[in-house]
């Protein structure tokens, strides 16, 4: 189990400030092809349950699990009802003692986990370690075909963790104009912003992803219910690179259209002109295709999203609404950067 409390980097970077920039490293930052399960808590209180979930998955699937917390969660607090330990779900472990037919790399049919053997159990002596093993026997093997098989088996084991993920809960209408997709410590900021936008009558919903690898199986379906997908992250756009291909392939299967686009954009401050720009682009799309927008939000959680969503332009409203949006835009400190941001967008 690895707990990564993310901070601004690289290196010592911003040692006491938050960032969500370790996602790619968590997903891919190892030698060879070695996927692991990656999950992220969304509130300080959720850190307890995510740790519990990490242990549950690690034991059931016999797989490394990385928890991506961040400085905002680690330094944050909220009222949290201490659970009665008895009410927590069991984490069953079946230790093998049966020697007949034992092999250290036998696998459970459902989870592909190897048998749990407590060291010291008589008759089940075996050796494990980082050097490649032959499947089933656990003998050291440099055989190319076995290695390929093992790489695929390990990846499949992680993929199967998806069957543990509950249906994604959607904050707001289950289809509409905009879906905001978040993960980690931005939960509070995103939820507040989305609810505020909803109170203004906008067709906005949000989901918060706790399981980052594998992603929730219903994610592709949910993303396709919205015309646009906004992925605000405290990085230069990392989750978006995982989500975009996932809905791209989904749509490809179902409609045959390469629907998803995303833009690389680095910004130290949010720009309220973002939506205006993207809706101009959106005119070219007659179909109700999802667009995934990448946002680099290096700002304090809780401050970033509200002005952005206020500036959201409703496609079915006219100039009146645009005027209102720009009026609200002028009230924010970001308005003077509007043209620069627009120019920035056109170049990407």
């Amino acid at each position: 189990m690895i707990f990564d409390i993310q901070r601004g980097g690289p290196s010592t970077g911003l040692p006491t400030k938050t960032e969500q920039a370790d996602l790619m490293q968590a997903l891919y930052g190892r030698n060879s092809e070695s996927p692991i399960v990656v999950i992220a808590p969304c509130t300080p209180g959720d850190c307890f349950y995510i740790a519990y979930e990490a242990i549950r998955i690690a034991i059931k699937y016999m797989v490394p699990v990385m928890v991506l917390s961040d400085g905002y969660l680690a330094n944050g607090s909220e009222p949290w009802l201490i659970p009665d330990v008895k009410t927590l779900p069991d984490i069953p472990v079946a230790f093998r003692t049966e020697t007949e037919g034992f092999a250290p790399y036998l696998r459970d049919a459902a989870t592909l986990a190897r048998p749990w053997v407590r060291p010291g159990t008589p008759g089940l002596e075996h050796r494990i370690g980082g050097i490649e093993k032959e499947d089933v026997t656990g003998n050291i093997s440099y055989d190319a075909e076995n290695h390929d098989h093992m790489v695929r088996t390990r990846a499949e084991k992680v993929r199967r963790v998806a069957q543990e993920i509950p249906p994604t809960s959607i904050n707001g209408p289950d289809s509409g104009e905009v879906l905001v997709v978040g993960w980690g410590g931005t939960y509070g900021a995103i939820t507040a912003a989305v609810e505020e936008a909803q109170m203004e009558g906008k067709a906005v919903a949000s989901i918060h992803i706790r399981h980052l690898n594998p992603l929730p199986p219903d994610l592709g379906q949910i993303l396709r219910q919205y015309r646009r997908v906004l992925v605000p992250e405290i990085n230069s756009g990392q989750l978006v690179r995982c989500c975009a291909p996932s809905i791209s392939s989904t749509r490809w299967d179902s409609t045959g259209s390469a629907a998803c686009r995303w833009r690389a954009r680095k910004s130290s401050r949010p720009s309220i002109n973002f939506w205006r720009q993207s809706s101009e682009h959106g005119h070219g799309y007659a179909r109700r295709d999802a667009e995934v927008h990448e946002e680099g939000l290096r700002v304090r959680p809780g401050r970033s999203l509200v002005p952005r969503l206020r500036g959201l332009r409703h496609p079915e409203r006219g100039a009146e609404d645009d005027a209102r949006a720009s009026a609200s835009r002028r009230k924010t400190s970001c308005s003077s950067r509007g043209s620069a941001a627009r120019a920035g967008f056109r170049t990407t």
Partner: protein
Amino acid sequence: MFISGIGCSSRFPYYMNTYGFHTIHGRAPALATGLKLARPELKVFVVTGDGDGLSIGGNHLLHVLRRNVDVTILLFNNRIYGLTKGQYSPTSELGKVTKSTPMGSADRPLSPCSFALAAGATYVARTVDRNIAHMEETLRSASAHKGAAFVEILQNCNVYNDLAWNVLYDKESKILHECRLEHGKPIMFGPPDDRRGLVLEGVKPKVVKVKDVPESTLWVHDSSDRATAMLLAQLWAPDYPIPLGTLLSLEGETTYEEILVQQEQKAISDRGPGISRSSSWQARPGRSAEQAGR
């Protein structure tokens, strides 16, 4: 249970018909510590080498020793990185020409026994691969020790560093320098007809001919004394003998896992199992809603 890092030494678990973890480079002590905390009843060996234990995992080795985790650590010291085909290691001699030091190593070699003693190991011994009887005796003694036991095994690499310890392999040199330590007995070495001993002048060891001095002045080995063990660990040929055997063995020292298991039990008996509620308060939904409304 045998836990190893990476290197030729660390293939060891595969040669044993028991449980083995072939772990990550230098990190065997960390895994051994974890296992010992979870399963204090297991007998745990750590197998490492001069590169794995003193370079890549020098930090981990330091801490497993100072914490006195009840593990037996075997450090195979062949003065070379053999698995990667012959690069200089932390114990390679100054000036040694290897593939990675074509003009000779500029690094001064480390003494593994001095390292272990300085780190606070409660048992430190040295043995040599060509003396199987002595090695067996040393390993038995080390594995019987309660606490972190460290054994340096001087070992040859016949491919990439042949005659690594020729000072103890060569017949003449061996007779001159090999010194078997025995607790409570004077430290003696050298050929049978010309035995040498050590006397301490202040804190400085001096080689003397046994027949020239009264036996009562000879340095008597006390394996329960860390200070003299550190002196012994520094001795080497050609000026001094090469001590083999148990340099230090401290009995009755509390182990790391004993302390932690006690703490865990105390915490459970004082506060009960589960999550402590002693410094918590409960937020009542009704009241917080009321506050929010204000």
